[in-house]
């Protein structure tokens, strides 16, 4: 099997598996006052400190949650509610056109059910938000916006945004900024304090930790109304018995991924560049979506996720490509949203101005910590005949 879908989920790092399984054997609710509870609390707090340290946050800023989806929902809805409560004129929600559905659909829900006005920030042909666009939008709606959300790195095409610049713009209008950094943490240098963001989502399973654990980094001074009510475990912003084993494993994974990032980023980018060059060698009319591989750095790091290769293969259906590659034991993704497993043309590509046919004929190969040169070789060896066959299928239908 050639697994080239790390952006969907990546294998757990051995260190995280070890910490996870070890911790699963111990009892203790971190809210209990007895010895077992205190030990569990200690483990969680140490893990929180580890996470905080690795991503440039304070331990109190780490609000543990079940993953990216919950963190995104909490940030969008919670910050919206808090800001609107403080100033009823602030009913606007600004999101970029290429956000993950966890952000987009949360914003749409606020518009449909909470009287919010949703503003969608356009992106350029590479999928990036221009801070000047944000400035223009906020200037046009001064005093009306409750929260802005722009992702750190896009999950489909890998494009990185300049979060520092966007946060500065948002703050100049006294608007908090949330960033979905699910794809960024562990792949790019992410420093919460330096980024200026008020809230940041991260999740374990994209960086070598378990599925079902993640965090919203929330600045100490950011106010946020809870989504889940109960014991108030996490700063009264999030309730639910803490997942000790998951948190411990998340911390181990974040620590390892962040420490290893400088080396792995270079390695992955080299593998990815080789993959793209050779795929285009096999299929000369294939085009790379997103920023060029040699684009200038953004915010002191790569302009594109190092493991991301997203290409359009003219004359093909992504569905057909995926199925044929699967038959060759190569696992990748069309990168687009699925409803009942139905591939729709990606809203990300459409927002970038890619036409619908090209959007449908796209594949995302995403490399990660377990990727090797042999994976690249396998994909390159398969792509020519697969594209030819897929072209035949589209031509006939």
């Amino acid at each position: 099997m050639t697994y080239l879908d790390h952006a969907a989920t990546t294998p757990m790092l051995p260190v995280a598996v070890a910490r996870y399984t070890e911790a699963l054997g111990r009892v203790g609710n971190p809210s209990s006052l007895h010895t077992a509870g205190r030990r569990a609390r200690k483990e969680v707090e140490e893990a929180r400190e580890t996470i905080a340290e690795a991503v440039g946050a304070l331990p109190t800023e780490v609000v543990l949650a079940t993953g990216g989806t919950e963190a995104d929902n909490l940030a969008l809805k919670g910050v919206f509610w808090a800001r609107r409560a403080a100033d009823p004129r602030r009913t606007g929600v600004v999101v970029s056109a290429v956000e993950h559905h966890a952000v987009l659909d949360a914003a749409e829900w606020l518009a449909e059910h909470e009287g919010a006005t949703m503003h969608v920030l356009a992106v350029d042909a590479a999928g990036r938000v221009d801070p000047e666009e944000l400035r223009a939008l906020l200037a046009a709606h001064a005093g009306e916006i409750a929260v802005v959300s722009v992702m750190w790195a896009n999950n489909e095409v890998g494009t990185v945004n300049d979060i520092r610049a966007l946060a500065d713009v948002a703050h100049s209008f006294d608007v908090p900024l949330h960033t979905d950094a699910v794809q960024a943490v562990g792949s790019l240098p992410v420093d919460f304090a330096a980024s200026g963001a008020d809230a940041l989502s991260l999740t374990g399973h994209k960086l070598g930790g378990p599925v079902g654990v993640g965090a919203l980094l929330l600045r100490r001074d950011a106010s946020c109304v809870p989504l889940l009510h109960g014991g108030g475990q996490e700063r009264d912003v999030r309730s639910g018995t803490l997942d000790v084993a998951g948190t411990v494993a998340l911390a181990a994974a974040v620590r390892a991924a962040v420490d290893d990032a400088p080396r792995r980023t270079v390695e992955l980018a080299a593998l990815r560049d080789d993959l793209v060059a050779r795929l285009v060698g096999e299929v000369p009319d294939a085009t790379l979506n997103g920023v060029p591989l040699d684009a200038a750095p953004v915010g002191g790091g790569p302009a594109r996720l190092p493991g991301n290769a997203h290409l359009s293969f003219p004359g093909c259906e992504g569905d057909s490509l995926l199925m044929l590659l699967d038959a060759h034991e190569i696992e990748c993704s069309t990168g687009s949203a699925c409803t009942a497993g139905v591939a729709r043309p990606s809203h990300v590509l459409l927002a970038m101005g890619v036409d619908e046919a090209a959007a449908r004929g796209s594949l995302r190969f995403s490399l990660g910590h377990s990727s090797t040169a042999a994976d690249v070789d396998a994909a390159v060896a398969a792509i020519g005949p697969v594209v030819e066959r897929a072209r035949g299928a589209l031509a006939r239908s």
Partner: protein
Amino acid sequence: MRVLAAMSGGVDSAVAAARARDAGHDVVGVHLALSAKPATMREGARGCCSVEDSHDARRCADVLGLPFYVWDMAARFSADVVEPFVAEYAAGRTPNPCLRCNEKIKFSAVLDRALALGFDAVVTGHYARLTDGVLRRAADAGKDQSYVLGVLTAEQLAHAVFPLGDSHKSEVRAEAARRGLVVAEKPDSHDICFIPSGDTRGFLDERLEQAPGELVDAASGAVLGRHTGVAGFTVGQRHGLGLDRPAPDGRPRYVLGIEPVSRQVRVGPAEELDVRSVAAGRPVWHAPWGTVDDVVVQVRAHGGLAPARVTVSEGSLTAELHEPLRGVAPGQAVVVYDDDRVLGSATITATA
């Protein structure tokens, strides 16, 4: 062979896929997404196009160990099945969308794509027998679906596999249970999959500019009432005419004819429905052209059988019925059988 199993999420297509695999074929399961905005859950026993049905299909493929994908056929389905369905009703005819789906989607768009992707055939859970390119009625007379497959050409049939033709539905359900398929007890889908409410009239009203017209007595020309639009009426229809006055003789009245231009719907007594001659167009024919006698024609999916003498030439088919048939609606297919063998089919254009 490498075969593609079209899996609706129902029991029949799941067992068909399982049997194809047991027969030694290399099977890949595909669920056809026919609606651009599928409902999350199935409504009652109707339809096969909800997300829940897609999940059921996936679970069956998992249990059978088959690779499984969802193919988006929504645009093709809309253009080739739903839009013509609406247009046919608007023209006063009565379409059969299941037949169109077989003709244009399952054994055309899907088959073509499958062949291009390296498959040899498409497997479905239809109840019909197919041997050496000859299509026959299913062993289970109550479930026989040869009527909605009669439209398939020899070329299409050459790439079709129907593993359920020799089985009874009860056997198929028992086999599904034995194989651990969760859909073993799932109710049969009936009606039209894209009208899960079963309200065809409402569906048409939403999509057509319906204009009111008159219900007239076919014999006297007397206006008996008014209707809100011709689309949705079917020749032979008795219920839902909205006639509050009974016929003078107290007997029920039926739709005899639909005139979309004048928007008149002609009604009359049952015996006026008797048809002795059927003209049809676009024939698909599996026997030498010319005349065949002592064959049986079927003019709708359930019932509507009569012995006949049938003449087929390029572009048209006529059937002289040896016994009259009632409720023969233009737009439906006439399928011609020699005993249980399908000789061919055509689309009914006129009756006399």
